[in-house]
């Protein structure tokens, strides 16, 4: 047996031991990592639809096609969530979805919830890498006073209202960061419009209670 092969085997053994140890640790940490990952999304959902007891994902399947045109498999993608008031998945109170728009220096993901009237309940910025101190102020969720951008200002807005002030709408944009504000506002509007059409949404025929 040549020396090289012997050394190769030694190295392989070392690597295997390492891999084994890692696999052990991974099996311990993996569940927690998954929980952390889900927790974030879950947290956002809970935030945008505070009254929901059950949030049911509605998925669609996207066929993945290879070069010959055969469908290889169906990819499942969560389209939106339905929110129910009761534990037993009854009493639809609203929907939630994720909107994505290109901001100043990143793609901004926003979780949006709206009620059965088609009015937004709350929004939450899930991820963004905009300029700190500027576009990143988009995450601000302090109570809205009518002067300064806050995610709270989206409350009770309907699709038609979603335009930033510079474009003639009602959304107060972040000072000096119109691009970011526009990206968020416009992405919500576009996707929400789209979604409303797809789920053939019509406001419930009842007066809204506060």
């Amino acid at each position: 047996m040549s020396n090289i092969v012997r050394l190769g085997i030694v190295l392989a053994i070392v690597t295997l031991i390492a891999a084994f140890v890692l696999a052990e640790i991974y099996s311990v940490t993996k569940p927690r990592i998954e929980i952390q990952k889900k927790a974030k999304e879950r947290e956002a959902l809970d935030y945008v639809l505070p009254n929901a007891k059950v949030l049911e994902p509605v998925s669609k399947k996207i066929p993945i096609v290879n070069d010959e045109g055969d469908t290889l498999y169906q990819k499942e993608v969560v389209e939106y969530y339905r929110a129910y008031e009761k534990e037993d998945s009854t009493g639809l109170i609203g929907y939630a979805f994720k909107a994505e728009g290109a901001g100043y220096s990143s793609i901004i993901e926003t979780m949006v919830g709206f009620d059965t009237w088609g009015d937004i309940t709350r929004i939450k910025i899930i991820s963004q890498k905009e300029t700190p101190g500027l576009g990143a102020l988009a995450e601000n969720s302090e109570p809205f006073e009518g002067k300064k951008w806050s995610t709270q200002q989206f409350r009770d807005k309907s699709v038609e209202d979603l335009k930033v002030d510079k474009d003639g709408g009602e959304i107060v944009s972040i000072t000096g960061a119109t691009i970011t504000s526009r990206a968020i506002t416009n992405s919500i509007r576009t996707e929400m419009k789209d979604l409303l059409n797809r789920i053939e949404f019509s406001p419930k025929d009842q007066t809204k209670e506060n």
Partner: protein
Amino acid sequence: MSLITEAVKGIYKENPVFRLALGLCPVLAVSTSIINAIGMGAATTFVLLSSNTIVSLLILLFGKILSEEGQKSINKIRIPMFIVVIASFVTIVEMVMAAYFPELSESLGIFIPLIVVNCIILGRAEGFASKNPLLPSIADAIGMGIGFTLALTAIAFIRELLGSGALLGFNIMGGEFKPVLLFILPPGAFLVIGIYMGFLNWLDERKKRSS
């Protein structure tokens, strides 16, 4: 050299960042806030300590069980072996951080896996731990780790203070202060480290002149 001096040299005289200019990328990338700096410093120190320990032990082990010739040939795969050791510890850090400190893990991003290629670590494993017994290797790792963390924190201190007017997230510059955004943007990192290095050189020169 006593263990203490072994550990202390990494802090000022042979500071890995300011003096040896090693492992620069994470230093610049994660020094936007002190929290990040300390997190990165701790992760790096952990890997450094573990790998120095294991490497030192491995060499000891080979010395015990292998013949002269066996040691020589094992020497040829020394580096890949060190890399495997280091990479394993890095992966451990990566997983643990993702599981228990998700926020930190997100803001440090790909610089956690990149600890593998941080030349401080391989450099110390190869240059120090493989040639020294266990205790000095540990002392060296602690010193270098602290030196790295301190440098990182020193940079983060300036960047966070000027760039967001806060320290550790507490606003301390008062409401009037308009943060100098540049300092948390990439250019700020370069400028701050450059000026630190120049300042240290100047201090050295002055000391040399006065003595």
